[in-house]
């Protein structure tokens, strides 16, 4: 869109909402929206699509603009693609972005450190795609997440890594085959305070197994959520009825957990202490709070949500992100039932057997 207004390189979560997907991507917009809805999410800011575009326009590869270079590639030439995209990624990750982008990110990180009272605040850096196209978003790279990042330089470095992921072989091939113009390309990056997660996991406001909307399904494990998302651990499962509050609980043996690297940056994966392995990763009170928060989010958006959450050592529940559920939403398009002329016509429909007239 051709707005003349200069878009800022960085926006705090509190200043964005669902309408800002084009600027801060899906994740950034959703976090802002949650914050506006009064949901506890870890604070942070988004590096906007404007910052990405400015950077892409600012940089060149062998004296050629990046969009032009991509447009000239042949999707059938695998070797040529691999070499060219590697070059683009190398430039994006090593050449400095425009000065105002660097300044904006550095200042935003400093403000965040001040807000949280930690001069070297650990943050998560995640790519936040603007595309509604889930097929594209599912490519490696658009879901990049770097945890436990500290310091402005490191934050900036990881932001550039997220950008570079848009130029992976798969991502570029996909755009070329679809004829998606490079000028439409945009990506935001979310920088968010790390929650010292005692436990974390995912939550669905409908059953991922059956699509049932009358339940909330929670997967929970010890430590950081990356262990659950990556499948390194079999999580506990709690399925709670929204109507009756009744719960089906399956406590798993959780052998591995992800935790912040004691060196101060990144994540390490280790064995869960024996005494914790068979204990539920969250208490019934925490489950109840998660369910309540999730239902508020679902109510706010008006559709079922996939949520990532964490509980810190103080037992405070945070939502790290929430996005509309898509798998069952697709299947829902066909309505399950419609009213009949008379209530008892439903009996005829069920008990009618197979009649030749039905083909």
């Amino acid at each position: 869109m051709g707005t003349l207004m200069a878009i800022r390189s960085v926006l705090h979560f509190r200043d964005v909402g669902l309408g800002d997907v084009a600027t801060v991507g899906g994740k950034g917009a959703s976090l802002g929206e949650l914050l506006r809805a009064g949901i506890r999410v870890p604070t942070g800011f988004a590096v906007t699509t404007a910052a990405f575009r400015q950077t892409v326009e600012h940089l060149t590869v062998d004296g050629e603009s990046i969009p032009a270079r991509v447009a000239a590639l042949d999707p059938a030439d695998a070797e040529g693609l691999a070499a060219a995209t590697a070059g683009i990624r190398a430039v994006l990750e090593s050449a400095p972005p425009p000065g105002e982008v660097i300044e904006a990110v550095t200042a935003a990180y400093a403000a965040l450190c001040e807000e949280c009272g930690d001069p070297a605040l650990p943050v998560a850096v995640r790519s936040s795609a603007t595309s509604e196209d889930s097929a594209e978003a599912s490519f490696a790279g658009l879901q990049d997440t770097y945890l436990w990042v500290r310091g402005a330089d490191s934050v900036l470095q990881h932001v550039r890594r997220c950008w570079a992921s848009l130029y992976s072989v798969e991502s570029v091939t996909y755009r070329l085959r679809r004829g998606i113009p490079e000028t439409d390309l945009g990506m935001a990056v979310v920088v968010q305070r790390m929650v010292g997660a005692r436990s974390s996991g995912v939550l669905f406001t409908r059953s991922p197994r059956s699509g049932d909307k009358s339940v909330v399904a929670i997967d929970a494990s010890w430590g950081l959520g990356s262990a659950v998302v990556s499948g390194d651990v079999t999580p506990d499962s709690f399925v709670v009825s929204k109507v009756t509050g009744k719960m089906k609980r399956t406590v798993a043996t959780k052998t591995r957990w992800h935790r912040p690297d004691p060196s101060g940056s990144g994540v390490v994966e280790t064995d869960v202490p024996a005494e914790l392995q068979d204990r539920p990763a969250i208490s019934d009170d925490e489950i109840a709070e998660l369910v309540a928060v999730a239902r508020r989010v679902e109510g706010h958006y008006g559709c079922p949500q996939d949520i990532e959450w964490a509980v810190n050592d103080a037992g405070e529940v945070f939502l790290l992100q929430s996005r509309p559920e898509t798998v069952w939403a697709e299947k829902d398009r066909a309505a399950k039932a419609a009213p009949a002329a008379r209530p008892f016509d439903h009996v005829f429909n069920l008990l009618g057997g197979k009649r030749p007239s039905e083909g």
Partner: protein
Amino acid sequence: MPERSFPLPSQIEAVPGAEGWEAMYPYFTRFQPEDDQRFWFYNSMHFPEVIPAFDGLTSEIPYTAIGANTARLFSFPTTMGIEYRIVNGRVYITANPVLDEAEQGRRFAAFQERAGHYYGNWDRIYGEWQQRIEALIADIEAVEVPELGELDPLEVVTGGRGIASNHYLRENFHRCIDLYSKMWHHHTELLMLGYGAYVVFFEFCKQAFPEMGDQMVARMVAGMDVTMYRPDDELKKLAALAVELDLGDLFVEGAEPAKVLAALGERGDAGARWLAALEAAKDPWFNVSVGDGFYHHHLSWADDLTVPFAALPRYVEQIAAGEDLTRPTERLAEERDRIAGQYRALLDAEEEKAAFDQMLGLCRQVFPYIESHKFYCEHWFTTRFFQKIRAFGALLAERGVLLTADDVFHLRHVEVEDALADVQLAWASGGTELGARHWQPIVAERKRIVEALSGWSPPPALGAVPEALNDPAVKMLWGITQETIETWLGGDDDDESTVRGYAASPGVVEGVARVLLNVNDIGQIREGEVLVCPVTAPSWGPVFGKIAAAVSDIGGTMSHAAIVAREYGMPAVVGTGMATARIRTGDRVRVDGDRGVVTVLS
């Protein structure tokens, strides 16, 4: 999947000491060679015990009525009626499906017209039904057992009747049988259509909310109809009156009803008032069988006060302690509407909500009948019916044909007519009945046979494993589904300590099991125990105030135990097929009413 089969009917072993049992039942109840190819299951829900010869009527007549209803009256598209067989004194049934699609189509056209008429006029027809069934009860009460005196009363002559009293032996006896048959036709009249409406809503809910427990569906439609709970409510009222009149001290655990009544008689005005209240409550509310109305020896509260009087001491104690025993109908109704409202809100499209409203509305319309018909039919009418037959038995005993009145129940009803003809003739000729010599050895022999057969363990099913059970009525009423059959086949890896059945009422509790095979033993139940029994009926009502959970061999989501457990908010697992065999009194068990699993812990 490997070929699996239940025992074949032709392979069923003879029970030693029960030779000749076949003569106790009609020829058309015997297994035929070709029956080996069909699937049969033991209807232990209605017939948990060996059937005495006369009581064979309680399978013959219901199945003639149910089948006529589904096959010939309403023309259910996919099912005819139910066939039954008796082997070793137990009833096995199978449903006859309609498989030909053209035939289904023809039947469906008729079904729409006929069922449509009933659904479209349901409230009016149900109102008329209640009048009809009460008229039928009045009819059975009015049947006279003739007195055969030295001479017939003078009025027979002066009134110009022209027919001697011996004629009315067979006419009036036969009238009892005819009325019983009519009662069963009325019993079935609305039942299958009612289940049809329920199954529609059930299937919709299971599709929209796959994680929803079966019992939640029932909770959304459960009526606040009091008929089923009324006998128990009457007892609570009597307990309250005892407290009010300061008679509570007479109601102690284990006291003989006769002694309690005598003691009440000595308590002046207060005692008299209580006894009058008892008499008022009895008719009709004590006409509840301690079983389900299928056996002559399952006496009613009215016939034997043991069961109600076993429940009174505890009620008296609770009321004296200030507890409120009235059913929280308002809270239940609110809860019911809240649950339904919340599930409705979870549906996406307005269309779906409109369909939900229709199905739920229809379900709630038919449900009062489903919940209350049993009291009128299996309990009130049937109690009166058996009392009349017993009176004819008393006449036969008086005439020396039988030794005791209850011996009449060891004759088939056609044999009773023979015995009555013997009396008619002997009274007319001035001779002597020859029945003593003929019938008494037969009765003695049959008592021995019943005894011998009672030790036999009937397999839960016989014959070929069915493709699929598609009869909604069978599924609903007996709790038999593909899963149940798998369980019976031992298709899962459960060990001996696990019993699976229907998740009939939600919740999980642990407690000590009390296995009761007979309602007459309900006095043994202690506070907080887990009841394990073959099947419950309204007369079991008083135990539900004491127990922590209920487990039964028989039943589905609509069985008595399921409905009452939901009402009391306690876990229940029904239709386990084997709980009473696997669990012992004193075992510590966990009852998981959410998943339908009972585990023996120690």
